[in-house]
């Protein structure tokens, strides 16, 4: 077990290094750079900044240097914990991301908690009551949730909340009076209120997926001979289900959770854009589009690191949950 984890840890850094090179090359691949993107955008709205203003920025950002020089500068600083400066926000990347990362983690964590809390019982229930009316209804609801694109749901939710209910304003995670305020109890309550819609929207499709997986796993296990044996021995129904079936059926979900860590950051991007959430998703998209290289590069590195860490954690969790893996 320890050896296994260690092995994974050793491969961690070379993987990150290779990813960093790929990331930097891909980000720099589109024609032009941040300034050409900026200039083109300004041009279209007729705001073409005077050439000299752009020339000054070019020097400031070192965009006139060759790519390997810029990469080396970025990665050596990255190792030292300096993620570089965001062109667009004119601030250190860590400062730009920090706040958003926290909100993202809060939101993703709550969403994950919420989806697991609801989907596992439903999955188990529908498996036990296979082909009953309630199974059918819940299955249809689940399929609907899977089939509805997140962003569409987000738009509908946004429209309803903005035009018909007008309780919390349009999207966002805070009311205007709290947006720039320091943290307080009132602000936290405000955040919780605003999180209901995003959690429902992001959670729905994930929930549907989890229910499906949970249900089919349970069905697999319920058909196993040892379950029959349990029954024959006269064990109570809930003991069979929770002690002997659920613990086995949940394994795939644990490995899935590891993959979900980065997904929670970048996967909900479109929903976050639609719902105007100040999370990292929309910022990552903007950074990629505007070729804000240090911001997007550092972002992708963090997401990669999360993926690797997530997998590692999932493996460890799996081993803890399933003795068979531990003793292998």
């Amino acid at each position, binding site marked *: 077990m320890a050896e296994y984890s260690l092995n994974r840890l050793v491969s961690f850094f070379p993987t990150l290094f290779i990813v960093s090179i790929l990331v930097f090359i891909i980000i720099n691949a589109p*024609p032009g750079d941040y300034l050409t993107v900026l200039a083109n955008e*300004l041009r*279209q709205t007729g705001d073409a900044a005077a050439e*000299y*203003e752009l020339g000054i920025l070019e020097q*400031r950002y070192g965009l006139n240097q060759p790519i390997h020089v810029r990469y080396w500068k970025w990665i050596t600083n990255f190792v030292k914990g300096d993620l570089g400066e965001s062109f667009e926000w004119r601030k250190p990347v860590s400062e730009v991301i920090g706040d958003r990362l926290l909100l993202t983690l809060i939101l993703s964590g709550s969403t994950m908690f919420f989806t697991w809390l609801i989907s596992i019982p439903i999955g188990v229930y529908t498996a036990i009551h296979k082909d009953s009316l309630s199974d059918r209804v819940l299955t249809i609801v689940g399929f609907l949730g899977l089939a509805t694109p997140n962003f569409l749901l987000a738009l509908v939710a946004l429209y309803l909340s903005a*035009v018909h209910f007008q309780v919390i304003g349009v999207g966002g995670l805070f009311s205007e009076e709290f947006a*720039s305020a320091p943290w307080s109890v009132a602000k936290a309550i405000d955040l919780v209120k605003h999180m209901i819609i995003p959690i429902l929207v992001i959670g729905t499709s994930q929930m549907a997926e989890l229910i499906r997986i949970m249900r089919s796993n349970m069905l697999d296990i319920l058909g196993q001979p040892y379950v029959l044996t349990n029954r024959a021995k006269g064990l109570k129904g809930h003991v069979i289900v929770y002690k002997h079936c659920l613990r086995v059926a949940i394994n795939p979900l644990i490995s899935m959770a590891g993959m979900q860590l980065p997904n929670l950051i970048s996967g909900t991007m479109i929903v976050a854009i639609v719902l*105007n959430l100040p999370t990292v998703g*929309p910022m990552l998209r903007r950074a990629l589009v505007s070729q804000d290289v240090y911001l997007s590069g550092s972002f992708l590195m963090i997401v990669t690191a999360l993926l690797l860490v997530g997998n590692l954690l999932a493996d460890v969790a799996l081993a803890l949950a399933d003795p068979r893996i531990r003793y292998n």
Partner: protein
Amino acid sequence: MKTLFRVNRLLLATLFVLLLAHVGDANTAYREAPMLSKLVSEGQLPPVADRLPKEPLVMQVEEEIGTYGGTLVNVFTGQSDASAVRRVLIEVPLWFGQDNRDEIASNIFAGYQAADDGSIVTVYLREGLRWSDGHPYTADDIMFWWEDMLLYTPTPDQPRVADSIPWLHANGRLPRVTKINDYEVSFEWDEPNPLFPEILRNDLFITGILQPKHHLRQFHPRYLADVPDQGPEAVERFQVVLDYLSPTEKYWNPGTPSLEAWVTKVWDGRQLLLERNPYYFKVDPAGNQLPYIDYVRFDVIEDRQLANIKAMAGEIDFQFRHIDFQNYTALVENEERGNYRTLLWQDSGGAAPNILLNHNCKDPVLRELIRSKEFRAALSLAIDRELINEMLWYGLATPMQGTAPVGTPFYVEGMDRMYAEYAPDQANALLDGLGLTQRNRDGIRMRPDNQPLTLYLDLMSPGWPSHTETFELVQDFWKQIGVDLKINVSERSLYHMRIENNEHQLAHWNMDRTLMPTLDPQSFLPIAPDQNAEAPLYAKWYATNGREGEVPEDVYAEMYRVYQQVVSTVDAKERNELFKKIVRLHAENVMTIGTVGLTPVVGVASNRLRNVPEKEIQATEFRTPRNAQPEQFFFVD
């Protein structure tokens, strides 16, 4: 009865006295916002009369004298969307006249004087004008901009900023800038630079001249005792100073002195909150110091579409940027619920979109065709502009040829109707006349080299709204005259790159700058190689002073020749008349093909917000909505 009369007389007399007092008051004393009076009474601010310049600028109000207070809420997408803020706040040294916008009017500068031949321009500052921190604004601030920002270099091998600014040069030479006294500065060139006064009122060029020396000197290596004047450390320090050459830098740095109506109080990446400038130099006709509104706030939205939804929910007080015409009906439907009104202003542009046929096209057969006026005229006559207007603009735009639209200073009678009627028969006849009579099975005409006449049009993504739809219509129109149009959509940077490399046949652009073409002739004359798709090689020839590109021929040769006269003509009237020659040449020869112009621009204003013009022109030159003068907006309860 008698008593009543007496009372009345008494009342009248009192009223009269009051009235007198009121008039007298307006002449001698100015009034200020309650939040400032409070500070004055606490001794934290000097009285309003001491804060205003000797002669404040009297700003006409749109509807009525306003009342103080409130927060104006706008949205923007963040720091890279600085233009959103700039277009509400910016103050330019000179500005457009309040009654006559052709006039170069005073603003931050009290005025200017140009010598007869235009080689000396003297600017006059407002006596007693102060920065938002109370420090006087004087000629020293201009000298700081000139000597310490534009001419200073921290290392000998770094070029001076001034050298890279073309409009500061007259015939390749920089001016001598001299402080005459605290309120007068002269710019003196060896040769005439007649367009300089125009530049002084155009935010696209000059606004960087407004620099607070007393604030920036703390960053400048020249003024820092512990930093050497030259060397690597100086380079780094100087960079901070250079950032301020962009007029939007101050918005992100609270505490930077400003001359604008509102000054940044908070910028945290989610909200930009600006507070009234207690030293703002404008008053209303009743002597109330402007602005009326206490705070302006810009909320960051993750995507520009959200501006539309927020507007419908009534969360925005005033917004034009990011509000799309496509949402016009939805905006109107939600007016009552959101307690706002939808404003329909008019873009000053001559064509949205403008079809640009590449006169430098690499394909020799096509180039030959494009260079023939009959061919261009045929393509133009085949377009049903009424239909475009009805289908895509609810009939609110104006079908016209791409030129300066009616009602703008450079409008030339009849040019907007030049080959702009829908006459497919005439178009067919013109193409037949060019010898393009053979057609293939699909009815597409064959070129002289026996290839089908297929035109490729480069479209930019994300582009302007309605453009793609317009070209889908044009595809149908041109099919009817046997011309096959194919659309090639590319990403913005790629689009500009393709044009600069002259790889395209046709392209499009909004003909947006038609109000001050003498200064910025791009809508009529190719000067930007990556934008003027109608002749990128001529543009390169112009931009590089003939070192690269292609020497213009025919009509373009004539147009460049006239433009050379334009820029050296001192008399403004004569200069404008000369430029109209270019406008005429451009339209009469169908150099570009316009579709519809004077397109509607949609925006929202809260029903509580007053003094917002119902009708206004949207123009880059005016920095719209800046030309609606938000400092005189106010809230009613």
